[in-house]
């Protein structure tokens, strides 16, 4: 019985962990893009 629980836990923990990692990565990347965009805007303003 315990083995059954363990096996299914492995599955669900694995899937959820992976999905959560991806979501966090996505958020981090989105934030980084905003940073970079504003950096580019600033230097554009400086140039002109």
């Amino acid at each position: 019985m315990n083995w059954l629980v363990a096996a299914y836990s492995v599955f669900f923990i694995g899937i959820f962990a992976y999905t959560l990692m991806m979501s966090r990565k996505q958020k981090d990347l989105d934030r980084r893009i905003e940073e970079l965009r504003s950096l580019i805007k600033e230097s554009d303003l400086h140039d002109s």
Partner: protein
Amino acid sequence: MANRTIGVASLLGMLTALWAVFVYAPTEATMGIVQRIFYFHVSAALMGFFAFFVVFVSSIAFLLKRDLAWDRIARCSAEIGVLFASINLATGILWAKPIWGIWWTWDARLTLQLLLWILFVSYIMLGAYIAEPMKRAALQAVFGILAFIDVPINFMAIRWWRTQHPSPVILGGEGSGLDIDMYIALIITMAAFMLLYTYLLGHRLAVERTQEEVEYFEQLVHSQ
């Protein structure tokens, strides 16, 4: 986003599958309730194989079209394939112990599944050690094609090897005399897994595209 819909669908699919596995399917005579691991274990194995197939097709497409979009699909599918293959191996081990008292045996199925896992990981590692994108994509594509062709040959070899030197077969009565209800439960589970794979792939592809966008902007900023 379309992927969100698929996400919801796969969640519903999973719930249905759980119902099918724990409520609908009958208890197996010899192994008892532990046997219910079978449905997710086999589905994970099949999805791992399917993910590899996607890597194969995308690799060919990349070599023909030179479009990095195909390379992206291949790489993301490989990663998700490793996930499914790992789950497959882990559930296999957790099934073997209570049934046979051993953690592992080199029977045909487990050996092949381990090999699939190793090929996936080799594919990913190869990509990690090459810098230039187009070159990396081409080399990974070539390896992806060679590796996938290797799988059916391995299947035959390991099968023959094991008929000559039999060892305890983990999936004992599987395939031989499956109850019709069990078949249905298995099919429901496999459908749910397919939805899950599609959702994960979509999600992973989105992250990868954003990653490439970030790298593009980084280059832009650094060149100023």
